[in-house]
């Protein structure tokens, strides 16, 4: 376990170095001139020149890269061209909203996967469920997000479809509104936050649920015809015990891998869904940064997502080794 953690930290550092290199490379390839961008379009050439000097843009590339790394190590991701604030401050402001939505989507997705696998398992060979899953699974996320928002918010007005919260000025200690509402003793805030989360989380959970559910169902199907399941039935265990003790755990590895993959795709989907539902998180921030060619902001978010991805992967691998003790971390 210790070697595994060491290995994954070493791995994380390597990945971050590679990413920083790519980010740095992009900065120097893209024709945008940061000095001009900061000084403003109407600044006289001398000001821009002074800015270049100040930013060290005339130094050799190696020196610039070293400086860049040093700044990264201090969590300094540069200044956003659009908001004129340090990118790290922006990220601190928008990350909680995205974390909250992302975690809710993963939880909902896993629950959906469980329900789907259970349905398919209980009603084997049901063409209806299979068809529904193919239909749901093949709807692109921008469409399902739009459909959800159109019907349940715009047409029926059952659920809120824009923003995170009705209470404009609420700000809690963690930034995760559902938890903060409970922490500060305002349960109505938590409920309101949950209601706001339903539609975007559903849109994001749908591909997770379908993919993980299918993988779980396939794995369960294989496992339940294994000889050791017959041994378990031969002990006179009830079918539920056989499924829970002998089936699920042995079937866990593949759906967990699939979950890891889906979480990576989730980062991309967040951009679309946060845009559609006006969710004030990192996704929306990134979309806006794209629109105004705000390179430092885009790259800062990329690094944050990179770290999150490594974290998720590590968690998934730990989960797999817990399900299957033969996997020695």
């Amino acid at each position: 376990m210790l070697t595994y953690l060491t290995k994954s930290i070493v791995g994380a550092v390597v990945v971050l170095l590679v990413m920083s290199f790519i980010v740095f490379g992009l900065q120097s390839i893209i024709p945008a001139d940061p000095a001009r961008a900061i000084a403003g379009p109407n600044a006289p050439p001398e000001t821009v020149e002074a800015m270049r000097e100040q930013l060290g843009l005339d130094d050799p590339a190696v020196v610039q890269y070293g400086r860049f790394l040093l700044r990264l190590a201090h969590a300094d991701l540069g200044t956003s061209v659009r908001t004129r604030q340090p990118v790290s401050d922006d990220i601190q402001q928008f990350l909680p909203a995205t974390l909250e939505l992302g975690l809710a989507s993963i939880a909902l997705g896993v629950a959906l996967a469980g329900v789907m696998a259970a349905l398919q398992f209980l009603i084997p060979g049901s063409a209806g469920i299979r068809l529904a899953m193919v239909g749901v699974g093949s709807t692109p996320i921008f469409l399902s997000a739009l459909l959800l928002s159109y019907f349940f918010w715009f047409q029926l007005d059952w659920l809120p479809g824009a923003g995170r919260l009705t209470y404009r000025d609420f700000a809690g200690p963690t930034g995760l509104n559902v938890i903060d509402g409970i922490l500060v003793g305002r349960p109505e805030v938590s409920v309101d936050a949950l209601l706001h989360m339903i539609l975007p989380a559903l849109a994001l959970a749908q591909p997770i649920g379908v993919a993980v559910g299918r993988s779980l169902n396939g794995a369960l199907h294989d496992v339940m015809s294994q000889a050791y399941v017959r041994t378990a039935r031969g002990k006179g265990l009830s079918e539920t015990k056989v499924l829970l003790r002998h089936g699920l755990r042995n079937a866990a590895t593949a759906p967990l891998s699939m979950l890891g993959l889906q979480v990576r795709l989730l980062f991309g989907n967040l951009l679309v869904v946060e845009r559609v539902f006006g969710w004030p998180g990192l996704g929306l921030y990134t979309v806006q940064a794209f629109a105004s060619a705000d390179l430092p902001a885009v790259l800062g978010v990329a690094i944050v997502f990179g770290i999150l991805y490594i974290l998720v992967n590590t968690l998934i691998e730990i989960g797999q080794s817990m399900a299957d003790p033969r996997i020695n971390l």
Partner: protein
Amino acid sequence: MVKLSHRTSEPVTESVLSVKDLSVILSREGRPSRVLDGISFDMFPGEIIALVGESGSGKTSIGLTLQGLLPHEYLPQIAGSIRLAGIELVGAGRRTWQSARRHLVRAISQDPMGALNPTMTIRRQMRESNGRSEGSIEDWLSRTGLPDPDRIADALPHRLSGGQRQRVLIALAMMARPKLLIADEPTTALDVTMQAQILDLLRVLARDQQTAILFVTHDLTVAASLADRILVLYAGRIVEMGRMQDVARNAAHPYSAGLLAARFDLDSDRRRPLPTLPSEHTPSIRVENACAYATRCPIAQPDCTAIRPPLEPASVHGGAVACLHHEQTPFLSAQRADAKPWPAQAIQETAALRLSNVGKTYPTGARSFWGRRQPQPILRSINLSIKLGECVALVGESGAGKSTLLRIAAGLVVPESGTVTRFDKLPPQVVFQDPVASLTPWLTIGEQIGERLRAVSPDSDYGRRRVGEAIKLVGLDPVLMDALPAEMSVGQCQRAVLARAVIVPPRLLLCDEPISAMDVSLAATTLNLLSDLRRRLDMAMLFVTHDLAAARIIADRIAVLKDGELVEIADPDAIIAAPQSAYTRSLIAAMPSLQAGGGR
């Protein structure tokens, strides 16, 4: 149903299991087929009954039916009666079945590797099983002869060997103190030495716990070394039943007699072809009102296909037999004895294969920090040469390195040290254990055999004639030239594989456990075919097996491999009469024999 006089010397005991007129229909892809047909028998406490028949005869299906574990996707329809400890199970509800499985009937199966949950410790799997057991988990483990039960209880299954897992499964079953234990070929996957120990263990358990054991096997010798009574199953019907010794001595049904004659052991005559059962099972005949064995039976009469022979008292022993003409059976063996001896085989001094100082390691040890594995030696300085025209059998337990050695001889694996010299320039032909898996499913048999005729199109007249000759050489029906592997039996597939190997006769044929998954009669047929082919085509042969009896029958010399080293190599009868190594001695001692009690 015939009442059998059971153990007249003992006080009459109540039967634990009473099966009456049991029939099972399973449906595959919507097509129903009768898998068991009118099965009736009783079992008494502590009794061991051998259930014998070739593969596909329905042995496993009986076991699963008695446990209520026939796969429900096959829509099992069960008729008749199963009374276990007085409880009727046919038509019983889920709860009744669950409680029967918990307390009354347990099973151990053919595949100890797959029968334990890989992610659960032995202890937890055993705790689930306890039933009405007194005594700790460690007690039960050590009762099955497992050393160090504490360590084993806390281990995961993949840390244990096949023999250890089978013992764990036996402990798992026996700690529930079941009335009935179903053992479905529990030793097929194990080495002879391990097999002998497991059989001993079952014998002791039946005696001490008064558990009735239904021992499923296709091997009559194993059955004879263990069982009190025998049921012979053919195409889902009981064709003969009686005391084990009676049937072994005087089989009343032509099928049982054939099975007995096809059995070979360390005393069989190796100078002539082994006796075999006539042809193979043809599953597609209509047998509702006929004897199912009629297509193969050497003494069949016209009436055999007009009525279904009832199970009636046998004239030669105190049991029962389902054959209209069973008084003719004793004359069968007389007809068989006069097979012509094999012609002498010319063995030249030149080597067809020479291995000098061959060594090989595989990385299987613990992983280092960088994920690399430690190399483990598999073969250590092997020196072996096979002369042109000679057959050498390589014997050893699983994991000894037999297959690795064969692959090195074939040039499929490169050794780390030493040299391999072959007489032939062509790559040698290899015959593997599973004939069905070694054929391509979507090519016809003719196409696959013809593939090896490099420059000749298999569709040309000449090509088809060569393929036809090869097919005839291995005794395959020429109409099968255009058949796909799925349409053929295992035996036919094995013949096709051999035809493919010998259409361009190699100087050296390599066989990797070609008979170990076969029932006795098919194994004998295959051994005869190989003996015939190598003489006719003047091939040298390396025959890898864990069966000493088969090795003795086919080979000119036997080489014994133990832990990657050749411990002895000599003439078969010399090795068996005077084994030099302790390992060979234990192999011979573990061979079951038809005389009850097992061992020699």
